[in-house]
Every structure is written in C-alpha cells, then in structure tokens.
C-alpha cells in the first residue's frame, strides 16, 4: 500500500526532503519510522518522537492504512 511520510526539522535535513510517498507492506506506524530511519540515517530514536496520522496525533502501534499521511514529530521547540 501507499503512504505519504512527512519530515520536519532535523529529520527533513537528514532525509533531504520534506515528504515522500512510499510503498510499504502492512505495518504499524512504528515500523514505518524504523524503515525510514534506516533509509535516511535519522539520529533521533523513536522514543523521542511523536507520530501523527492524517493531521492528528496517533499511537505508534496503530496500523498504517492505504493513503495515510504520516508525520514524524521530533521534540518541539516553539516559543
């Protein structure tokens, strides 16, 4: 199935892109991050991130669905 991944801040710098569409096997959001981390060499461990699906915070254990937009949220630093 096809999902769109969004990268922000240091993840975007490391991935050298702000988003990508990937073809993946059925799997959890956690597995999506692990694959992306391997592909792009992300320095941030998953435990320090949050994940969002289709514009709302989600749980890493949720299964990705066809057409999902999944964002990996590094530790925030607004303010």
């Amino acid at each position: 199935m096809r999902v769109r991944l969004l990268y922000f801040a240091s993840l975007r710098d490391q991935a050298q892109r702000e988003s990508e569409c990937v073809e993946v096997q059925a799997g959890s959001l956690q597995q999506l991050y692990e694959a992306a981390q391997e592909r792009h060499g992300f320095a941030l461990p998953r435990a320090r991130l949050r994940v969002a699906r289709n514009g709302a915070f989600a749980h890493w254990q949720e299964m990705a669905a066809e057409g999902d937009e999944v964002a990996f949220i590094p530790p925030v630093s607004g303010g």
Partner: protein
Amino acid sequence: MTADSFRISAQPIDVAALRAILDDPRAGGMACFEGRVRDHNDGRAVNGLRYEAYVELANSEGARILDEARGKFDILAASAVHRIGDLAIGEVAVWVGVTAAHRDAAFAACRFIIDEVKARVPIWKHERYAQGDANWLHPQAGDVA
C-alpha cells in the same frame, strides 16, 4: 482572527491588533506573554532564527490548548499566535493574551498556555549562530526552555 483562537503566522505578529481583539468590557485584566528572539541561547551568540511548523497539526493542537485553558480557568477569552519563517533578534516569536474578570485566572491561564504551546505544539526552532553554524533545537525532557 477572533478572540478565541490559535494561529500559526508567517507574517510578523501585530501585537496591537491582537490586544484590540481581546477588548472586552467585562475584562478587568489581561495577562500576556511575548516570546522574543534572544541574541544568545545556551551560552552561544545567536544571529537569528527560523521557526517551522507542521501547520495543520499546530493549529489544531493550539486550539485544543486554548480549549483546555478555558475549561481549567475562569477566563473570558484567550488568543495565541506563533510565528514561523525567518526572524531577527528582538522579533516576537509567540504572543499569548488572556482576559479575565480577575488577574489570578488571567495569569494562570496565560502561563498554562505558553507552557503547553512550548511542550506540545509541533513547531521547531532553527538557530543560526554567530560562529556560522546552525542547529535544530530538539530539547530533551528536563531542558530549560
């Protein structure tokens, strides 16, 4: 922008306009907080910075924080705006304003909102240092903000 809203803004923050929106004859007090770009962070000289946001989620999470503030504190209205893009030293990065009949609630809600915005809203700061390098800030739990 209405009185009860959170907004990510790519334009400079117009504090006077934000204050005017919060005018309310029932309000005895307005507490506000402005976060500004400092010329230093963590001991290093900063030339400027850039904020980026996951705008869709930042707006919904910011609105949720304002809702929580209205539930927890006896306030009349609350607004918050966070800037994104390139900012110079001294520019306003974030503005929070809260009106209430009494100042206890105004102060407490204002503090709650800025703390939660900093902790939860998907916005990231990229600092450019005087020495030429640059860095995304991804604070660890417990870092002083």
